[in-house]
């Protein structure tokens, strides 16, 4: 191996490692569960490693890894078929098994709202709004037109606004329990 190859090799490992936290957050967003997400990341690392040769040094490693992970996710979903079509079951499983995994309480509501989005809208808003990709990069990762990504992001935003707008109001107003206390305290 020449020195140049070794440099490329080292850079590949370094960039792969540096991309992992972001890649893992994307996996959690897609699967909704940490354990499934970590399995998906593991499969992605192995695939990426085996296909090092197909990665062009100097290009966007993060976009490349996200593409592999996304393809892996959908191909596993297709293989599981019936299992994932049981969305009600999947939903309740997601939120009853490890609620503490979703972190802070106020983020759990957001997490649930995010989960009601169709897969294509959810991945679009995550890629652009959280993972830090440009619309063009997100389009490449999802294998669709830039305009499609833009419209998915915008539909996802409206939908989240709709869901969280309703629950957002109750954040500021008293809930039924508090209202009762308030009326007792300040009542006639």
């Amino acid at each position, binding site marked *: *191996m020449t020195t140049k190859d070794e440099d490329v090799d080292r850079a590949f*490992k370094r960039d*792969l*490692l540096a991309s*992992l*936290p*972001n890649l*893992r*957050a994307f996996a*959690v*967003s897609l699967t909704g569960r940490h354990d499934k997400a*970590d399995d998906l*990341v*593991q499969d992605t*690392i*192995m695939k990426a*490693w085996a296909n090092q040769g197909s990665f062009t040094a100097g290009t966007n490693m993060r976009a490349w890894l996200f593409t592999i992970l996304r393809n892996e996710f959908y191909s596993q979903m297709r293989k599981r078929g019936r299992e994932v079509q049981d969305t009600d079951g999947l939903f309740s499983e997601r939120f009853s098994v490890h609620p503490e995994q979703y*972190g*802070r309480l106020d*983020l759990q509501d*957001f*997490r649930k709202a*995010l989960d009601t989005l169709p897969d294509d809208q959810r991945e679009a*808003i*995550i890629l652009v*709004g*959280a*993972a830090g990709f440009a619309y063009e990069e997100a389009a490449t990762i999802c294998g669709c037109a830039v305009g499609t990504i833009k419209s998915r992001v915008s539909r996802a*935003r409206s939908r*989240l*606004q709709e869901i*969280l*707008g309703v629950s*957002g109001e109750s954040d500021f107003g008293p809930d039924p329990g508090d209202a009762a206390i308030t009326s007792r305290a300040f009542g006639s």
Partner: protein
Amino acid sequence: MSDDETRNKDKMTTAQSNNFRPGAMQPNASISRKLREFYDAVQEEGIPDRFLELLERLDDAEKNAKAVKTK
């Protein structure tokens, strides 16, 4: 991330939050913020050991394969 970048990011966050008082929060800004908070919370968990171990194993396997080839 360098100190400068961190400072700039802080500045940006402060500037943004000044634009939106809690009562006047724009729905879009709130959703973008929550999205980032949710995503960053996972990112901040760091890299689980199983991935570091996996990368080490892959690295070792690759070195061994090359050692065999050059013999």
